[in-house]
C-alpha cells in the first residue's frame, strides 16, 4: 500500500488523530477516545459505536495492528499500536498538511 496510490482514500481527521495518538504509545479503545479528544481539544469525539468501525478500517488497511490483549484487573482489553506503514502514511499526511497550513498562516 502506498500513500501515493490514488485509489487509497485520504485519511479522515479521526484516523489522523488516532494515528497521532498511537504514535506516542499503544492504547486501548477507551484510552484512544480520551487521547483523541484531548489532542483535538475536544473537537473530535469518536463515539464508542463508531470507534471500532474506524479501527476496523485502519486494521484492514494495515495502518495499525493489535498490540496485545493485556489484562487490567480482571478485564482483558485490546491494545492497538501503529505499524510502520501507518507511521509513514501519517507523516506524509502531516507534511502535506504542514505545507497547506504554512501557506495559510503566511498569508
Amino acid at each position: 500500500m502506498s500513500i501515493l496510490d490514488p485509489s487509497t482514500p485520504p485519511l479522515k481527521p479521526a484516523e489522523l488523530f488516532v494515528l497521532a495518538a498511537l504514535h506516542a504509545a499503544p492504547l486501548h479503545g477507551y484510552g484512544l477516545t480520551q487521547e483523541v479528544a484531548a489532542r483535538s481539544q475536544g473537537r473530535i469525539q469518536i463515539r464508542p459505536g463508531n470507534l471500532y468501525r474506524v479501527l476496523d478500517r485502519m486494521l484492514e488497511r494495515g495502518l495499525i495492528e493489535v498490540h496485545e490483549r493485556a489484562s487490567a484487573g480482571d478485564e482483558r482489553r485490546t491494545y492497538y499500536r501503529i505499524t510502520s506503514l501507518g507511521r509513514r502514511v501519517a507523516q506524509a499526511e502531516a507534511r502535506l498538511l504542514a505545507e497547506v497550513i504554512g501557506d495559510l498562516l503566511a498569508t
Partner: protein
Amino acid sequence: MLRLFLRAYPKSFRQKHGEDLMRLCRDVYGPGFSPRAALDLLWNGLRERVGAAPRDFDEWLERPAREGRGERVLATILYDARYGVRGLLASRGFTAAILLTLALGIGANTAIFSVIDAVLLRPLPYAHGDRLVHLQQPVQASSGLNAGFSPLEVKDYREQSRALDAVVEYHQMQFTLLGGAEAQRVETGVVSANFFDAFGVRPLLGRTFLPQDDVQGAAPVLVLSYEYWQRAYRADPSIVGKTFTMNDRVHQVVGVLAPMPQYPGVTDVFMPSVACPFRNGASWAQNRTARGLTVFGRLRPGVTLSAAQKDLAQVAERLHAAWPDAYPRTDGYTTTAAGLRDELTRSARPTLIVLLATTLFLLVIVCANVANLTMARLVRREREMAVRTALGATRLRLLQLLLTENLILALAGGILGVLVAAWGLEALAAFAARFTTRASEIRLDGRVLLFACGLSLFTGVLLGCLPALPARANLAADLKEGAGATAHPSHLRARSALIVSQVAVSFALLIGAGLMLRSLLNLQSVDAGFDLENVLTARIDLNWTRYRTAEQIRPFGERLLDRIRVEPGVISAALTGSVPLNGTNPNGAQFEIEGAEPAEGPRPRADFETATPEYFQTMGIPLLGGRAFTAMDRAPSAPVAMVNQSFARHFFKGMDPIGRRLKVDSGRTLVQIVGIVADIKQHGLEREPGDEIYVPYAFTPYRDVRLIARSRASAAEVERTVRTAVKELDPQQPVTEVRTLAQVRADNLASPRLTALLLGAFALLAICITAAGIAGVIAYSVSQRTQEIGIRLALGAEPSSVLAMVLRQGMALVGLGLALGVLGGLAISRVMSGLVFGIAAQDPVTFVLGAAVLAAVGAVACLLPARRAAEVDPMIALRST
C-alpha cells in the same frame, strides 16, 4: 440489554470487536442501559452494515448453510435478483427495449392517474366538501338554463329550508381598486358573511368575514385570494390591515385565503354582500325577479341530496304560490340542487375518462410487447432452464427465478415511468385546467407513487407468470446439442395471440385519436359567421362610481370610438356587449311581438346585444335585409332594433320582420325592427347560433363593453393606440382582455386540439410498439422456419411466393387483430360520443381509415422479415441441420 443493540452490527464485526465495544460503552456511558448508548450502537451498527454490504453480500449469498427459513428465502430472492440483474445487464438491447416501453406505459398511466386522482377521486379541499351543494333555479322557457337567485329568494331559502344548515350566495363584479401602485380592475367575489365557514375554508392570514361585516352600515372589509395576494402583493405578509379605495369607499384588508381551487369564479378579492353597491341597490335587493346570484347550500349532517331536493321543491312551491308574478307558470321555474363535487368536475369527466381508457389500452399494448420480448428471450434460455431442471430445480423454483427477474424489470420501468410522469405532468395539468379548477391540485404525491408502484408490481407478476403458461417438460430434447432454438409451437401461438391483441388495442386507440381529429377538423371548418382576420378586441369595463348613468357612459364610448377611428391603421371600430365565441350561455330576455297572438307555452326569449352602427361592418357580418344602425338612431328618434336570421326564422316564419315592433324591457319600450343580419356563432363554435336582438349603443350604452377594431396595422400597434386613447379619456380606466378575434377562435379550439394531440400521440406510440412487435414475431417465425423455407426454395419455389407466404402469415394476425379491434373501437367511441363534433361517434370513415392505416403499418412491419425469408440461401439453410 445493550447487547441487544450490539446486534445492529454484522456478525463478523461483533465477533471481532463486540467485547471491546461493550466495555468501551460502559466506560463512556456508564454501567447499565443508557438510551444514548443504544442509539449510538444502533446508528453505527446500521452504518457498518450498509458499508459492509457490497463486500459481504456475495460471500453471504454463496454460503451453503442457512441459519433459518427466513434467511433461506431472503437469500434465494437476493440470489435470483443478482442473477437477474447480471443477465439483464448482459443483454442490454433487450433490457433497454423493455425498460423504454414499460417507462412509457407506466409513465402515461401514472400521469393520467395523478390527474384523475386530483380531479375526480379526492374529496374537495373544503372541510365540508361532501355536504356542499349548488342550488339552481332552471327555467324551462330558457331551455332549462339556471336563472340563479335574487337576494330575496336567498333569504327565503335560508329561512325555510330544513335540509340545509347554511345557504350562501356568490356573485362576481369587477371593481376598480385604488391605493396600490396603479389602479387595478379586480375580480370581486361578493359573498355572504358565512360563505367561507359554509365551505370550511380557513384564512392563511388574518380572518375571513364575521356576521357583523355583513350588516348595513358595517365598515367595508376585503379578503384577498391567495393567488391575487401572491401576484399583486408578492405575498406581502403585512397586507392585513392595509386600506384601499373601492367604489368611493375605504376598504380594509382583513385576511388572505389559503390556496384552493378558484371556484365558482377566478376571484381576486372577496367582499361581504352588503358592501356591493349593486347587490344592495333597491332595484336588486328588493326585486324578487332580479336573479343572477350563484347560491350554495350545505346539507345538514345525515341529510341526503335527494332529501334536500324534496325539501327545496317544497320551499319552491310555497314561494311560487305566494308570488305568482315572479314565477310565471308558463316559464316553468323549479329549484334543484347538485353535489358541488360533480359540478366542479362535470366538464372534465368525459375527457379524463377517455384519457384513462387510452392509457390503460396503451398499458395493455406495453404489457403484450414486454411479454413478447420476454418470451423471445426465454426461448434463447431454454437450454439454461433445461439444465436447471436436470439439476433438480422444480417448476416453482424456475417460476420464482423468472418472477424475480421480471419484478426487477418492472420496478425499474416503474421508476423511469414516474420520471416520465413527472416530466409530462405540468403540461397535463395545464390541459386539465381548461376543464376544471381542481387542476391546481394535481401533483405527484404518495398516492400517485403508490399507484405507480402497484402498477409496476402488477406488471411484473403478470409478466413473470406468463412464461409458465405453455406447459412443457421435454427435458431430453432441450438438452440435445443444437436444440437450443427449436420452436415450441405453443410459444409461437402465445406470441401470435399477443400480436393479435396488440393490433386490436392499437386499432381502438387509433379510432379514438381519429374521431378526435375528425371532430377537430370539423370544428376548424366551422364558419363563425364573421371575418376574424385583423380584428382586435378589448374589454373596457367602466368604473360605475364615475359612470353611473347612460348620459355619463355614452359620451365616453362615442368619444373613444371617434378617437380610435381617426388613427391611420384603423379601418373601422365599434362597441358591443360581448365578444363572439365567448363560451357563455345565452342571457335570454323576454320580449313580445306587437300585434302577435300570445302563443301557448313560455313567453319568447332572445339574446340582447348592444352595438354601435359600425359593429356589423367591423365584424364582417353581412346585412341580409333592411338597414344597419346609423348615427341618427338615438334619442329623440324612435328606438330601433336589428335581429339575426335565426330570430327572423323562429318568430316570423317566412314573413318579413322589417317594420314590425317588439315590446322589450318588460313591455316598457317598443322597438322597431329595421334590419336583419346573418347568424354568427355567438356562444361557441360547436353551438348553434341563438336568436339575437341588437339594439343601438346610443339607446342602451353598456357600462362593460368590448371594443372591436378592424385594422391594417399590427395587433400590437392597435393595442397601443387603444390603451393610449382610453388613458387620454380617463387615466384611471384599465383596459383588459386584449385579444384578436383569431386568438378568440384559437382559444375555442384549444381543448379539442390538445385532446386530439394527446390521443394522437398515444395512438402513434401504440402503433410503433405494435409494429415492432409484429416485425419481431414474424422474424422469429422466419428464423424457426429457415430450414423449411430452404427446402421450399431448393425444390423450386419462387422467392416471391416465399415472400407472399410470410406476408400472408403476418397479415392474418393483423386481420384478426383488426376484427377484434372493431369491438374495442366501438367501446371507445361510445365513451367519446360526448366529445365529438359534427360526426357520429361510430363514424364509418374513421373506422375504415384506421383499419387501412393499421393494415399498411402491419404490412410494412411484415415486409422486412418476409424479404429476409425470400433471400434465404437454400444451401446454407439445409446445411445448418
